[in-house]
Each structure stands twice: as C-alpha cells, then as structure tokens.
C-alpha cells in the first residue's frame, strides 16, 4: 500500500553519476599522451597480467580506469566489433571514431536505463595517424559522452589534478622518453606536494608507434626497454634535447634492423 518515493529525474541521474564517479575514483589514474612518433599510455598497475591498456586493432589502442570486469567486457566487445568490421569490409574501415561512438552509445544506454547499474569505468580510445596531426584521442566518461582530446589526457579518480599538471607541461613533438618522464611525474604528483615514487615494476606502459613497420602499431614496453627509457629520462633531465633515444624500439622481435 505504500506509495514509492518520488525522485526527480535530475536527482536520479546525479545519484547514478556520483555512484559511477566514486567507483572510478577507487582505481588508479592513467594518462595517455601524444609524442613525436605516436601515442603513449602510462599507468600504475601492480599486475603483470591484468592490463589497463590493450590493442583493439591495427592503429587503435584502448585504456581504461575503473572496475576491471566492466572495462574488460567493453574491451572484448570492442575487439569483436573491430575484427568483425574489418573482416566484413576492410582493415582501413575500422576507425577510433566509429569505435568511440559505439562505446558512447553503449555506456550512455547503460547509464540512463533504470534497470541497469551504471558502469564504473572511464575509457580512452586512441588511434595513431600517419603524422601527429592524424592522431585521435577520445575520452569516454561513464555517462556515454565523448570528449575529443588533444595532446594529453588523464582518466581515473585523480584525473583533474593530473590533467592540470599535464596541460601545463605537455608540448607537441616530445620524444618517447620525455613523454614517459612527464607521464610518470604527473602520476606521482600529489595535491599536497608530497610526491610519491612509482617504481618501474609497477608501471604499465604501451605505445601506438607509427614508425613500426608492421600493420599493427600497438606495442607494450616492458623489461629492459622500459628501464632504458626511464634511464634516458634521467639523463635527459639535464640537457633537454629532443633526439635523446630513438633507437629504443628495437628490442621487440619484429624490428630487425
């Protein structure tokens, strides 16, 4: 016999948004930056096996903050979407814009349907172009909106502060080592000034490198190569010169120079 409480649509949406934002804030933040030869993904991730970044298609990468099972689900949906589309038409017909639209629709529908719990995720879909002008980075918050980003983007709980840090310091045409250094600094900076140190074995780093000879441009940077880049970063702090370490992408099995 009891009548349900009236909740205004504004209030309902605000509650759902707050729920999602709180969930995302529990995870660690990550950053995506453009550098001279592509796009680099950097995040703090103690796990070696559960990735925050991954390949979706030839030139398209995926990054996510928030609840693992939810973004993993979206990631696999994206891989299926991209592979099916590439198989039906052509590999060139798979674009980050198309994928971002699909994700936005998916997240938006879930967010506004009363029956479903909103996803506690924030995604980045990035596509590397033939030249820096062709790079595309889309940020997708939990509610299904799309933000077309340039230069750098941060997602996750601490995203606003990190974005502010990056906006001031990121510039076009950075080398990979410089961009990586900036990303690590941004992730380890704290609002209260007590910066943390993130050890290399807790970093997850991946790139979309337009100079890779293969069709598939996504590559994880791990082990020796990552250590070398982080060292190059320290060396580069004194003389800030762009052509610091361009030979760093040769440890993979593919680039046989």
């Amino acid at each position, binding site marked *: 016999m009891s009548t349900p409480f009236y909740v205004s649509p504004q209030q309902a949406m605000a509650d759902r948004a707050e729920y999602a934002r709180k969930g995302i804030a529990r995870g660690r933040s990550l950053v995506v930056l453009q550098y001279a030869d592509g796009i680099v993904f950097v995040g703090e991730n103690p796990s070696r096996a559960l990735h925050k970044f991954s390949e979706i298609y030839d030139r398209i990468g995926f990054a996510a903050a928030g609840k693992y099972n939810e973004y993993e689900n979206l990631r696999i949906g994206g891989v299926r979407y991209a*592979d099916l589309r590439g198989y039906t038409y052509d590999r060139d017909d798979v674009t980050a814009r198309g994928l971002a639209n699909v994700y936005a629709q998916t997240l938006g*529908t879930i967010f506004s349907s009363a029956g479903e719990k909103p996803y506690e995720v924030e995604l980045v879909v990035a596509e590397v172009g033939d030249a820096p002008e062709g790079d595309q980075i889309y940020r997708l918050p939990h509610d299904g909106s799309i933000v077309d980003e340039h230069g750098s983007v941060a997602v996750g709980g601490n995203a606003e502060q990190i974005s502010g840090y990056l906006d001031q310091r990121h510039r076009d045409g950075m080398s990979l080592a410089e961009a990586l250094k900036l990303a690590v600094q941004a992730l380890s900076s704290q609002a209260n000034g007590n910066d943390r140190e993130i050890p290399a074995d807790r970093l997850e780093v991946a790139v979309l490198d337009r100079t890779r000879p293969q069709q598939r441009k996504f590559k994880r940077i791990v082990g020796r190569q990552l250590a070398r880049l982080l060292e190059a970063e320290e060396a580069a702090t004194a003389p800030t010169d762009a052509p610091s370490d361009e030979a760093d992408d040769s440890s993979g099995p*593919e680039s046989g120079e």
Partner: protein
Amino acid sequence: MEANTRSTGRLPAAFLTPGSSSFMDFLGAHSPDLLPGNRALPPVQGAIEAPHGTTIVATTFPGGVVLAGDRRATMGNMIAQRDIEKVFPADEYSAVGIAGTAGLAVEMVKLFQLELEHFEKVEGVQLSLEGKANRLSTMIRSNLGLAMQGLAVVPLFAGFDVDRERGRIFSYDVTGGRSEETGYAATGSGSIFARGAMKKLYRDDLSEEEATTLVVQALYDAADDDSATGGPDVARRIYPIVTVITDEGFRRLTDEESSGIARAILERRLAQPDGPRAALL
C-alpha cells in the same frame, strides 16, 4: 540480425557476453552467414572451374623455417594469373602457403589470420604453434563439403615454435588431417617434383641462405615438370615468394633478394638443365 557492423548504435548483447576467445566461434554465434563453411550450396554436377594455386614448399634449418611458393594460378589448362600470392604471414611467428582453389584459400587465410590475432588480443598471449596448427585443421575440415565438389584447399603451415626454439612444418590433407613434417614438405600439383628435388638437396645443417636457395631450386624443378607451376618469369620480373621465420619473426624476402636467388639458379641451369647433382653413394 540487429547487429550490423555499419551502425554506430550500442554494442549488441552478443558482443558483451563473455565467451570464447575464438573469432570463428563468435562469428558462428553472431553472424553464421559470414562463416565460409556455413554457405548452403546447390548440388553441382561435375567440377566447378575456378583458379587453382599450385606449388608450395617449405624447409627447416637450424634457427628457423623457410616457406615459399610459385606465382601461377591455373584454370584448367589456362594460366589464370601469373603473379598470384600464395604465401602469407599468419602472425608474427608463422606463415601459411596455400594450394587449391585460390578464392576459397585466400578467404581461409584471411579468417585464419584474424583468428590468431583475435585470440592474441583477447587473451593477451599468442596461441602455441600446436594450437595454431590445430585451428587451421578445423578450418579445412569445415570446408570439406566444398572440397567434395572439387574446391579443395590444402595449405602448408610453417612457424617458429618459440617454446621449442625451432622451426616446424605442418602439412594437411583435404579432410583437415594434420601431420608434422620433418625437414621439408611440399603441397600442390608440383609437390611430387619439388619433394624429389628437396629430398636430394636437403641437409639438416643448412644456413638460412642455403635454405632459401633450396626452396627456389625445388620450385624450379616443380615448374620444370608440372605445367601448373610457374617458373621464375625473368621477362616480367615475377619471382617466387620466399618467406623466412626465425626467432626474430616473419620476414618476406624482398624482390631483389628473391630475384637474386632465382637468377643465380637460372644461370646455373643454362649449363646444367637438371640442376645440382647429388652423389650416387
């Protein structure tokens, strides 16, 4: 089917349902009409005429494996195409060469490449070489209906096994039966002659250069005796496709490299048409 790939609507439920890491399984569940094996065909009398690819050869050497193919496609007694490509990278560490009905074979390769890539992206690791070989077996088996109508696809699969650190070759029959070959293997109409040539020339201590020369010699001998296999076409600058897979990954020889090998062999054959002699005892 609500989910067409062109629309930019929400991802259909099937895309977000946890399931297999196989693209073929996904395709089978979501749009089965796109799977090559699921096509309903009217009963056909006699063989269907379609371009056929011919000879593929492979040999192992310490450190890797070489896979090569001639460039001819035939339709009956006609040459359908002089510069067809029949050897493809399957992924970073493996390659597949195809003999049989060209149209179906190329489609099978495309799906096979996608299958390996899809698994790698979803799981975060590559399939084992054995797993890849088995997957190809399943795909050939799904083509059995067409094979019975004369549209068979018989690939040769070669790859570098990163766990065992050596090159391996797998051959197949039309029913999907898979067998691992030691040393060298050939498939297609010229394979009898190519295998004979390799039998005499193969050693287990070949260098990479010797192995690439060996396969081109074998293709030359196949073309010599089988009209469906094309020899090196010097006038049109069409040379065999030669690929090498080592722990560094897949590499296709450049046109200069393969023309260099083919021309050197051609030069020698002007003096000795039957090619290198093996010792009698």
